[in-house]
């Protein structure tokens, strides 16, 4: 077990290294010059060279790459070209903002999807609940998530004015950690959070349903029913066994969905790390973009590892070697 985890961690390090390297060269290949943005404001050639020096953009590509890897090993992603602040100082509050919609959104989406999926899968085949459940889930899954966001904004913000449609708090609200504890923050949180839930739930629901449908006709379910245990308990056995394929899908999908949250952050102007990532790419702010991509890569790798470990917990037949 320990050997297995160590080996998987070593593999993960390799994957992260590959991703960071590809990223490094991709940004260098991009035609634009990061100083162009500042040049327009009348930067002299001397000043430009000084900037390039400061940012570590002089020397051969190889020298830059070695310095870059060395810095990453010490956790130093450099300073943002735009904000003139260390990258982590820029990203940390944004990461926290993103976690506020991502963690509850994904947890609730997965949990609701699993529960409703079980109900739909256990319902009478061809009945009302099954047909409407599958129909709704398929439609929502087919709709791009920015459309879900815009629909929520149109209905609950513009038309009904129940929720604010922009940002994280009204101007002049408290700052720092205290701002997360205000009703105003929760009020702003509601719509983007709902958008994440709606975005993530349908696939969970459909996967869980097909698992339950498959399991409900298995011999072992018949024997559990024959034992005279209540219907709900029988359905639980089917759901418990359906969790296995769901988990294999869920963790990698979590990481993927975090990337999808970028769009929701942009639609709701939520100051999260995803929105910053898009902005950083358009602004040629390499250090910020690189750090953000690095984070995503680490998350996806860890999610896959977590999936394997959780699967082993849920399925007694899995043995790690």
């Amino acid at each position, binding site marked *: *077990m320990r050997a297995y985890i160590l080996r998987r961690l070593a593999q993960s390090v390799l994957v992260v290294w590959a991703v960071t390297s590809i990223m490094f060269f991709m940004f260098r290949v991009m035609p634009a010059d990061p100083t162009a943005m500042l040049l327009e404001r009348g930067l002299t050639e001397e000043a430009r060279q000084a900037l390039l020096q400061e940012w570590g953009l002089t020397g051969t590509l190889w020298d830059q790459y070695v310095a870059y890897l060395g810095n990453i090993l010490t956790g130093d992603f450099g300073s943002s070209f735009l904000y003139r602040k260390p990258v982590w100082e820029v990203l940390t509050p944004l990461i926290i903002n993103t976690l506020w919609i991502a963690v509850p959104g994904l947890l609730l989406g997965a949990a609701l999807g699993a529960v409703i999926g079980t109900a739909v899968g256990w319902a009478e085949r061809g009945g009302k609940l099954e047909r409407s459940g599958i129909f709704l889930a398929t439609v929502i899954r087919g709709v791009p998530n920015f459309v879900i966001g815009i629909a929520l904004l149109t209905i609950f913000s513009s038309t009904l004015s129940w929720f604010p449609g922009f940002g994280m708090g009204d101007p002049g609200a408290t700052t720092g950690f205290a701002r997360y504890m205000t009703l105003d923050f929760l009020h702003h949180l509601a719509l983007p959070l709902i958008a994440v839930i709606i975005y993530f739930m349908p696939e969970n629901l459909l996967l869980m349903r097909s698992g339950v449908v498959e399991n409900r006709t298995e011999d072992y379910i018949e*024997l559990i029913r024959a*034992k005279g245990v209540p*219907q709900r308990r029988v359905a639980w056995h089917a759901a418990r*066994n359906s969790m296995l394929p769901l988990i294999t899908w869920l963790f990698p999908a979590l990481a993927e969905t975090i990337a999808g949250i970028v769009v929701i952050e942009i639609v709701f102007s939520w100051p999260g790390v995803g929105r910053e990532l898009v902005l950083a790419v358009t602004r040629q702010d390499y250090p910020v973009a690189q750090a953000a991509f690095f984070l995503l890569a680490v998350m996806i790798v860890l999610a896959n590892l977590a999936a394997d470990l959780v699967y082993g917990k849920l399925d*007694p037949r*899995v043995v*790690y070697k």
Partner: protein
Amino acid sequence: MAASTPPRAGTRPASAATLAQLAELNQRLAWKPAARLQVEGLSIGYSTLRGRFHAVEDISFEVPAGTNLGLVGESGCGKSTVIKALMGLQPANTSVSGRALLDGQDILGLDDRGLRDIRWNSISLITQSAMNSLDPVYTIGDQIAEAIRAHERVSRATAWARAEEMFALVGLPAGRLYEFPHMFSGGMRQRAVIAMALALNAGMLLADEPTTALDPIMQSQIMTRIRGIHAHMRRSMILVTHDIAVVAETCENTVVMYAGKMAESGPTADVLERPLHPYTMGLQNAFPRLPVPGAPRQPLISIPGVVPNLLLPPPGCRFASRCPFATDLCRTTAPPVVRHGAQVATCHHTDRSEEFRAAAARPETWRNMRGAA
């Protein structure tokens, strides 16, 4: 994962309270009498896209309290369908008619609540394919305890203690209760399923081909085990099988089914020694018998043909197309139910059964018939 959490080798030490509760539970369960089952005119049909499928038609039999009944017939003749209907496990689009009186209570039209009450309490099941009939993600002990706790208000520890006793009864070490189904061999799984079926000492046991999936040595071990338990606990049992030898050894009474209908029924000794129905005669020929020294070896004879399509059952006797003795009457008119002493057969020509029996023992009777058909 298995490496980090090895199954515990021993049993859980039981507290005094658990032991007291277990003694009380055992006493309550031991008091349960064997059940009597009377099935009258049981018919089961499925509605399919191509019409009604008559899986079982007009079956009647009785299992007196404390006896075994063998339900035999080839695959697809409706044996398991009868067992499922008795447990209320038929699929949703099934119509069931007739009556099945378990100690006087009709168990066919029961609602969910009523079914839950009788299941495992009064009528329990040893399933056909023990390979797949255990939940792969729960320990065997959990699954036995679940059955006990669905009906008896006892603690988890007490239910496990009872499960340990059931394991001892079927010859499995108690420590293996903590293991998962995939860690068991086929024979052990079958024994675990038997232990589960005995957990609440139900008055009526339905054993649906309990040994079909096992090798011959394991089959005989399991059957010996079942017979031993039966003698010890004095339960009633319906044993579904296509092995006539097992029925001969185990069951007081026998019902022979063919294509969803009852071909013959009666005391096992009568049915096997003096079969009235040609199908029973054919079935007997199809099973190997140990050669008697000196006597000529009995050849194995299979019954030619296949079971008729039950979506469009033939108008006369359902066995007519495969029967070497069939007459025009057999092909046009459904046979009557004829009683000969304790024995009952659904055949037009039971009065010629002696002549048939002599002919049926000869392989050419069945071979010639194939040419005629």
